[in-house]
């Protein structure tokens, strides 16, 4: 078996192996170490002896044996070290697995694992790193490369995450019904962050073999499979599908960013659009409408429009107004301003943008000026649009956006 064949098996099975161990032994760090040892054993044995009929069962059994061995060694050591014979780590030696106890059975624990990785005691970057490691089964090197940081930095985030889980006494259990909504919301935000990190890349991802957009989508599918009736999970999956469908159209041959209004819509992935729309049609009539469903609904209106001008702008403006009620924020106001400008007049859109200019943080944000420039141009005022494009180009930290905004300024007659 090739290494890549084994990697595929591992990517598919690692979260199940980890989940099976965690169900019986609470410490995440211990379980991850044991799962890694099982992987190493597979790398050693499978090429020689062939892949077992039930790879998952094999991995769980071997990992469990390693975990039991480790625990026994540790208890023996702690007994020697502590005069009063009491284990310090809070493990009750009597509760440790006995030699005859067999490995835990396989059961789908994806949701518990996701909830544990996105535990409230962890910082957002730690939640992201741990989810990619434990649920997506990526190596530390792959995660580090995907986030363009050295493996050492990513190792620190993971070490910190394991320690925080231990300190918080995080359990591999379902939260109480009262806590569940907030915990699922955190998982959803992590999935969306991973997706966005990948999706908003243009040229950078050519250097990286891990596609974070695919990973984010995969994680959300997993969450959706565990909670098929959850409105916002369904909405987030629909949003990602409808967004990911545009991938082929969002960069040109040179690798430069193509804004939505200039995209060649024939390149959109229609199967993905259809899947996203179907999910949305199932969930929207249920009543409760959250931010992911609204964003997905907006993406669906775009997906069904033949061109930018022929888009149902009054509908999009309405959806942004609803999104503003549910999850207000400057990004929502800016997108709403564009929709209002298209549905009514550019001046109506500009009135919304001008409100943001009073906020010092938004005055320093490139998108405020980029949207303003675009709307000023629509309003027939290129003299005012030019400096706004310039200001937006100066403020953005995105290379493709900077090239695009500088090109707009040049088109309006600015110095190159």
């Amino acid at each position, binding site marked *: 078996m090739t290494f890549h064949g084994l990697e595929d098996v591992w990517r598919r099975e690692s979260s199940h192996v980890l989940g099976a161990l965690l169900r019986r032994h609470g410490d995440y760090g211990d379980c991850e170490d044991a799962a890694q040892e099982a992987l190493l054993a597979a790398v050693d044995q499978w090429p020689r002896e062939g892949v077992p009929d039930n790879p998952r069962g094999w991995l769980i059994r071997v990992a469990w044996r390693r975990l039991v061995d480790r625990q026994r060694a540790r208890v023996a050591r702690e007994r020697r070290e502590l005069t009063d014979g009491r284990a310090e780590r809070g493990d009750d030696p009597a509760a440790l697995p006995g030699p005859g106890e067999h490995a835990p059975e396989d059961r789908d624990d994806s949701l518990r694992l996701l909830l544990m990785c996105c535990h409230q005691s962890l*910082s957002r970057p730690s939640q992201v790193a741990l989810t990619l490691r434990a649920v997506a089964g990526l190596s530390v090197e792959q995660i580090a490369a995907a986030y363009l940081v050295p493996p050492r930095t990513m190792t*620190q985030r993971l070490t910190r995450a394991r320690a925080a889980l231990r300190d918080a006494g995080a359990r591999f259990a379902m939260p109480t019904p009262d806590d569940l909504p907030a915990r699922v919301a955190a998982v959803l935000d992590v999935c969306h962050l991973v997706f966005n990190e990948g999706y908003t890349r243009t040229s950078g991802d050519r250097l990286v073999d891990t596609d974070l957009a695919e990973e984010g989508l995969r994680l959300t599918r997993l969450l959706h499979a565990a909670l098929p009736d959850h409105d916002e999970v369904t909405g987030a999956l629909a949003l990602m599908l409808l967004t990911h469908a545009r991938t082929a159209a*969002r960069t040109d041959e040179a690798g430069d960013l193509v804004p939505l209004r200039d*995209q060649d819509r024939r390149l959109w992935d229609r199967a993905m659009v259809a899947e996203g729309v179907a999910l949305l049609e199932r969930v929207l009539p249920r009543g409760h409408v959250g931010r992911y469903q609204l964003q997905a609904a907006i993406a669906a209106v775009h997906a069904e429009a033949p061109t930018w001008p022929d888009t149902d702008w009054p509908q999009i403006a309405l959806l942004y107004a609803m999104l503003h009620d549910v999850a207000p924020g400057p990004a929502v106001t800016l997108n709403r301003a564009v929709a209002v400008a298209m549905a009514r007049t550019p001046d109506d859109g500009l009135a919304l943008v001008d409100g943001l200019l009073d906020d010092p943080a938004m005055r320093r944000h490139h*998108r405020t000026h980029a949207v303003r420039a675009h709307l000023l141009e629509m309003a027939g005022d290129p003299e005012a649009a030019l400096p706004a494009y310039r200001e937006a180009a100066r403020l953005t930290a995105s290379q493709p956006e900077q090239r695009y905004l500088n090109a707009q300024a040049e088109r309006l007659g600015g110095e190159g």
Partner: protein
Amino acid sequence: MKYVILIHSNPQPWGHPTGDYVAEAQALPAEQRARMDHDFDLLLKELHANGELVSGEALGAPSASRLYRWDADRTPVATDGPYSESKEHLAGFFLIDVETQERAEEIAARFSGPGETIELRPTMWPGGDEE
């Protein structure tokens, strides 16, 4: 989001940590300087432990620089530093990777000290928003 924290300073003589060689810092009571050193140490430990610190380097004296510029024949010509005659020079840098601009600003403020200028600059990234 990645940012560099640039330390602009003029230690006399050139040395690190720069605060030990800057007159404004040297003028402070020993107790206060010890507390500042301690706080800075804690800050570095914190950034290292939570995976926000990507890398950092203290730089050699500007007089140790070699500068390369093209002459009229488009040939690189090397001269000795410093790059500019300004009072402060680039003395070191840290690369951080943080969640928000607010967090970057909070960290940068903690790098500041008497007689020095701390510059926080975002790094450019290869992605972008399509809307």
